[in-house]
């Protein structure tokens, strides 16, 4: 059942990745990055159990933390620089 969960998370990661490629707006990409980050958190947690070493949850914590910080960072610098820039790309 770890296998099923890990596989499902992997598929979800792939789909989120496609959204990150496709855009079309920058906010879609940020959202995709955020979803991707949460899915990585889940993947690592499940994989830790699958490999029988669940004491590596510290890493999961770092992923969750960095995911949050990078989303905040992207938002901040985007707002900071692009006040007058078009929302849509190109």
């Amino acid at each position, binding site marked *: *059942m*770890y296998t*099923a*969960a890990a*596989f*499902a*998370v992997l*598929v*979800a*990661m*792939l*789909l*989120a990745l*496609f*959204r990150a490629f496709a855009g079309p*707006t920058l*906010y*879609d990409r*940020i*959202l*995709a990055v*955020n*979803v991707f980050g*949460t*899915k990585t*958190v*889940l993947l690592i*947690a*499940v994989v830790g*159990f699958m490999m029988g070493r*669940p*004491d590596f*949850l*510290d890493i*999961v*914590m770092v992923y*969750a*933390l960095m*995911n*949050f910080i990078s*989303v*905040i960072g992207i*938002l901040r610098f*985007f*707002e900071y620089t692009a006040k007058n820039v078009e*929302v849509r790309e190109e």
Partner: protein
Amino acid sequence: MEGILNIVSWFLLVFGGFLCISGAVGLLRFPDFFTRMHAASVTDTLATAMILIGLFIQAESWLVQVKLVMVLLFVLLTSPTAGHALVMAALHAGLEPVLPKQKQASVEAGR
């Protein structure tokens, strides 16, 4: 008892996985940013909670369980916050939802 817990955790893991996929499909297929946001953030929180609780039942040492609870709390705190900030930023930037034709007309009439 052991058996029931196992079944519960099995169910939580599989259903959490299903929610992950359904949310990601929504993220990929929905027409505009706000609906995508909806699909992603709603399923994200629930799926994370379900999978982590499923793992919590399976964990053997209390240290692992404590860490799982910490991760869960952290995700429950940050994920909606990030979603909120994101939608607000998008609204401020003037991104508009895609509406069906009649609604679009009524919104424009209301302006």
